[in-house]
């Protein structure tokens, strides 16, 4: 019954490999996001999709390619993995905000710890 679910929770892979992380939300939200949390715990947005359309792309290397087959899914594919890609990747979702909206916020998945060796 998880609202935002990510798979896998842990991913260990060698440099140069290609890997994917999957995310699904069952909240009926219109917008989904990928955030990266580095080793110093800093959280930074990577991408945002609204109803399958790319909205935000924050200076992320083009080795990272998000794909949204429908508004409930947002996957992240990473090509040619590098050591610096090691981090925790969070998927999140939110409804579209409107003026005076109550109880607005993001719901996060439990994160995927990616380790590149």
């Amino acid at each position: 019954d998880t609202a935002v679910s990510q798979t896998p929770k842990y991913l260990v892979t060698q440099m140069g490999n290609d890997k994917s992380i999957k995310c699904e939300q069952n909240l009926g939200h219109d917008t989904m996001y990928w955030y990266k949390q580095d080793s110093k715990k800093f959280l930074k947005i990577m991408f945002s999709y609204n109803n399958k359309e790319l909205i935000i792309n924050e200076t992320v290397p083009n080795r990272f390619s998000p794909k949204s087959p429908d508004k409930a899914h947002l996957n992240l594919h990473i090509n040619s993995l590098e050591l610096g890609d090691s981090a925790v990747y969070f998927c999140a979702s939110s409804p579209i905000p409107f003026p005076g909206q109550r109880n607005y916020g993001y719901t996060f998945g439990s994160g995927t710890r990616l380790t590149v060796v």
Partner: protein
Amino acid sequence: AQTVTQSQPEMSVQEAETVTLSCTYDTSESDYYLFWYKQPPSRQMILVIRQEAYKQQNATENRFSVNFQKAAKSFSLKISDSQLGDAAMYFCAYLGNFGNEKLTFGTGTRLTIIP
């Protein structure tokens, strides 16, 4: 661009005592949301409390309350009667109300509870 600053990388508090975590932000917008998220060792991001900028009343959620000072762009979190389960990283976050907005986080404060 909006920025969020948490000036306390680490804080500690005795169990059952009260602690306040600081957060300041920079924005030119008048309508926005502010949040505090908790991240325990399990790494799950848990929403602790939210504040809508148009509301003058400070938000409260059980033992958690905020001191929202809009003019000063300050948004501190007070945890009363601290419990061992409160030990975690706490992130302050800002979200503009309209357009292609993104949740912008501060650098976090690691809270330790001393038994």
